[in-house]
């Protein structure tokens, strides 16, 4: 009972020190609950079964991510509790000189951890439950579903999960604390506060050399990522620049801590002004002792920025793409005249037989009254010409590109389309119609990398041969466009040629594009249902018919976007909280040590205003240093993300960067302010 009173008293007394710890725990618990309780928020949504499947996938992914998150939070909590322990060494020393056993001290810590754990869990869960109510609006918005009703939802599984995960974390903290205490020596505990800092001097020349080296290797890593087109053919190649980046970041901070001071000292009139000498010495020693954590924090911030901005822009561009890339309600397509040689080699006899009839015949056989349900029907064929492959269309540039992209297949047959057919489709898609001379062709494509390759060949005026007739490019670059509706820019190129050119060509595919013959959404959904029923129709399954509808594309794309966004925000926020909390704890533990220094400054007559200004500068620079380096990394990181997500489109980047910045300012800035005011509080107390 005595120990309990002591523990309670300690928490009350050192609330200031615990404030940031509490704040972080509560935030951690709340975020953990919110993202694990999302499934209960989606129950109220009116969604189709395919969206429901995506939601289920998302929820299981989120719970997987939660395990990872719990590791990060667990690490943070152990780190934080060790900081707090250090602050209290003298207190423990006094207990021990009074004859208290290490066991009792461990018990005090145990009770404290339980109390703090309980309070933070209760407050965090409470906060999480409240915030998660508003999440349902967000979730509905993400899945573009309508909210059928609004009700207060408690997710018991999520509550239990949160309590379970955090209990384990607190248990580990308790074990760590006990081990820590049992290793302590009384003399160290009592003298803990008396250690004066030794200023480690770094050799300036080594600093300079390392600084330059780290800058060069960073530049090299950036170059590896973005420097040239041939860089990063395979995903695993990103590991090298990441490794170089991490090491270089560490060396950068190591050398900078020595360099900054040396640089500022050179500007004597600035260095010997007000408290500047003190301020910069403090900053330099702080960075000096935290090079490792600074680097880790910097890299975490970098990840946060990249994850948040990419996830958000992905979601936005998916939505934007949809309007452009799926302008019609439905498209059927089937491969025609499949060669007998494919029998039992991917195709059944029935399917090969089926490939001999047209789509319209198929639909009639399946009793889907397309004349009644569809309007604006465009029925067309695409063709291939035996020897016209990508290799040929690239002409003389083929060997160059083959060397550059050794893994790309160049021997696939090019898809051809008649000018009149393409124009019919273009009219339907609201695209510009094309015109061609007798021996001219145009390539329509929208997949950026391939467009770049093709444009080079087009610039060379590369001729293609169909039926012994030569054709030359009418325009020296690809025309933006597509034939097949999709959620992304994935058209690697269709060649539009004059109608006569394809008279003897081999029809490759039959494509039927149409809108639903309906005046409102409800009717459209009814037709959609009829079409989707084909998925269960046995006769339909025997054919080679396939198709996509606008609604399907939309659902898949919305679901994918929402899933990535949720996971991105979840991880991003956790990384952000972790890095900000680490900085904050470091700063606060320093503030306690620094109290004496500020007391000295006061004694020699330094104004409070000047002291606060110095403190503000110290914390600001301490928080800004990793952020600035991270921002610089992010410029390249985000560009890289865009590069690999290029098919998703990048038009929405600015908006998502702004949102990322907002989240960053809110959380990171919030931690900065709390740290500043807590530090001020600590150094101001007499």
């Amino acid at each position, binding site marked *: 009972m005595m120990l309990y009173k002591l523990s309670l008293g300690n928490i009350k007394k050192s609330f200031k020190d615990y404030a940031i710890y509490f704040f972080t725990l509560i935030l951690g618990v709340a975020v953990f609950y919110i993202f694990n309780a999302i499934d209960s928020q989606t129950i109220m949504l009116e969604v189709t079964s395919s969206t429901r499947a995506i939601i289920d996938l998302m929820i299981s992914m989120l719970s997987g991510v939660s395990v990872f998150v719990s590791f990060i939070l667990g690490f943070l909590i152990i780190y934080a509790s060790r900081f707090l322990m250090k602050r209290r060494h003298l207190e423990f020393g006094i207990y021990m000189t009074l004859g208290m056993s290490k066991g009792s001290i461990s018990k005090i810590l145990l009770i404290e951890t339980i109390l703090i754990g309980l309070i933070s869990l209760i407050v965090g869960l409470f906060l999480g439950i409240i915030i998660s109510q508003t999440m349902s609006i967000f979730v509905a918005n993400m899945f573009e579903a309508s909210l059928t009703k609004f009700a207060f939802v408690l997710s018991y599984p999520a509550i239990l999960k949160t309590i379970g995960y955090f209990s384990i974390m607190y248990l580990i903290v308790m074990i760590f604390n006990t081990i820590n205490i049992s290793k302590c020596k009384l003399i160290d505990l009592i003298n803990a506060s008396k250690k*004066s*800092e*030794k*200023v480690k001097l770094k050799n300036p020349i080594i600093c300079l050399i390392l600084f330059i080296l780290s800058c060069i290797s960073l530049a090299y890593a950036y170059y590896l990522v973005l420097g040239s087109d041939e860089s990063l053919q395979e995903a695993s190649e990103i590991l090298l620049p990441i490794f170089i980046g991490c090491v270089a970041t560490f060396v950068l901070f190591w050398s900078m801590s020595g360099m900054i001071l040396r640089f500022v000292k050179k500007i*004597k*009139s600035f*260095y*010997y*002004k*007000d*408290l*500047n*000498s*003190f301020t910069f*010495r*403090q900053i330099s*020693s702080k960075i000096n002792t935290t090079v490792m954590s600074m680097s880790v924090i910097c890299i975490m911030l970098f990840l946060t920025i990249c994850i948040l901005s990419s996830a958000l822009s992905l979601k936005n561009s998916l939505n934007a793409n949809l309007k452009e890339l799926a302008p019609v309600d439905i498209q059927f397509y089937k491969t025609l005249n499949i060669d007998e040689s494919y029998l039992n080699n991917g195709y059944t006899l029935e399917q090969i037989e089926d490939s001999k009839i047209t789509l319209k015949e198929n639909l009639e056989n399946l009793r889907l009254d397309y004349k009644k349900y569809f309007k604006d029907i465009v029925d067309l064929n695409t063709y291939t010409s035996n020897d016209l492959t990508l290799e040929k269309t690239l002409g003389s540039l083929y060997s160059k590109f083959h060397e550059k992209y050794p893994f790309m297949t160049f021997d696939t047959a090019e898809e051809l389309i008649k000018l009149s057919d393409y124009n019919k489709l273009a009219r339907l898609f609201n695209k510009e119609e094309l015109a061609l001379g007798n021996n001219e062709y145009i390539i329509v494509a929208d997949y950026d990398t391939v467009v770049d390759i093709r444009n080079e060949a087009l610039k060379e005026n590369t001729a293609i041969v169909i039926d012994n007739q030569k054709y030359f490019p009418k325009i020296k670059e690809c025309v933006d466009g597509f034939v097949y509706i999709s959620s992304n820019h994935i058209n690697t190129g269709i060649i539009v040629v004059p109608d006569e050119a394809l008279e003897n060509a081999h029809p490759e595919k039959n494509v039927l594009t149409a809108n639903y013959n309906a005046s409102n959404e409800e009717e459209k959904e009814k037709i959609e249902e009829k079409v989707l029923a084909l998925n269960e129709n046995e006769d339909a399954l025997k054919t080679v018919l396939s198709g996509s509808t606008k609604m399907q594309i939309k659902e898949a794309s919305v679901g994918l976007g929402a899933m990535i966004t949720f996971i991105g925000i979840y991880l991003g926020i956790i990384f952000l909280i972790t890095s900000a909390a680490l900085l904050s704890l470091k700063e606060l533990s320093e503030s306690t040590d620094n109290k004496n*220094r500020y007391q*000295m*400054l*006061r*004694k*020699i*007559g*330094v*104004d*409070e*205003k*000047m002291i606060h200004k110095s403190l503000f500068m110290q914390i600001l620079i301490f928080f800004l240093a990793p952020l600035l380096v991270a921002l610089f990394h992010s410029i390249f990181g985000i560009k890289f993300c865009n590069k690999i997500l290029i098919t998703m489109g990048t038009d929405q980047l600015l908006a998502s960067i702004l949102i990322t910045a907002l989240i960053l300012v809110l959380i990171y800035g919030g931690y900065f302010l709390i740290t500043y005011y807590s530090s001020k509080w600590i150094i101001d107390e007499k």
Partner: protein
Amino acid sequence: MEKILEILDIEKYYGNKSSLTKAIDHISFDVSKGEFISIMGASGSGKTTLLNCISTIDRVTSGHIYLEGQDITKLKGNSLNKFRREELGFIFQDFNLLDTLTSYENIALALSIQNVKFKEIDKKIKDISEKLGIKDILNKYPYQLSGGQKQRVAAARAIITNPKLILADEPTGALDSKSAKMLLESLENLNKELQATILMVTHDAFTSSYASRVIFIKDGKIFHELIKGNDSRKEFFDKIIDVVTLLGGNLNDAL
């Protein structure tokens, strides 16, 4: 001699109504320009409280303290800080040097917070470091210095602003006898050559013997006063020891 500090009937109480401690009980005395005064007393006699009141670190309960005619008990907030940094110089028992700064920077800090230009700071530091014999250690950090060297750096910081009054709180308290002697000779030097007015608090008779006047305090009251006059330091030291003995052995750690 011109009166620089005038202490007029000051009192300082600690505690509350139920348990009142009188740390200073009606003390009055004057300090003239260029004097080197030592205030002696046992632990708990109120000497440090007196110094804290003069240095505006603490407030008096009643009475007035005038420094060159200005009543410093009326100062508040930032004007207190301004007063401290412009009119006073401090030397503390535990040096109070910032361990992250070099000696040079520690000394410079006293001037830079007064917005003195760097050129002037540099000139003044060169000047004072020569007088105090710390020229060679200007680029060292406190942890690289001996106690005596640290205290001389602190003394340089105290004197460099040309303060009206230097306050020293047990300046030799953390020093060995050789370092203490060197420091006291430095202070004597500052007092004689630069006419610095020094007010020192100590319980050490040897340290006091370097002063030109010694004020003895017991239980918050002035108990006795000794003036060196034309005595040699040895004679003055013997006189101090006599008073200490008279004080009733309370200063049994005097030697």
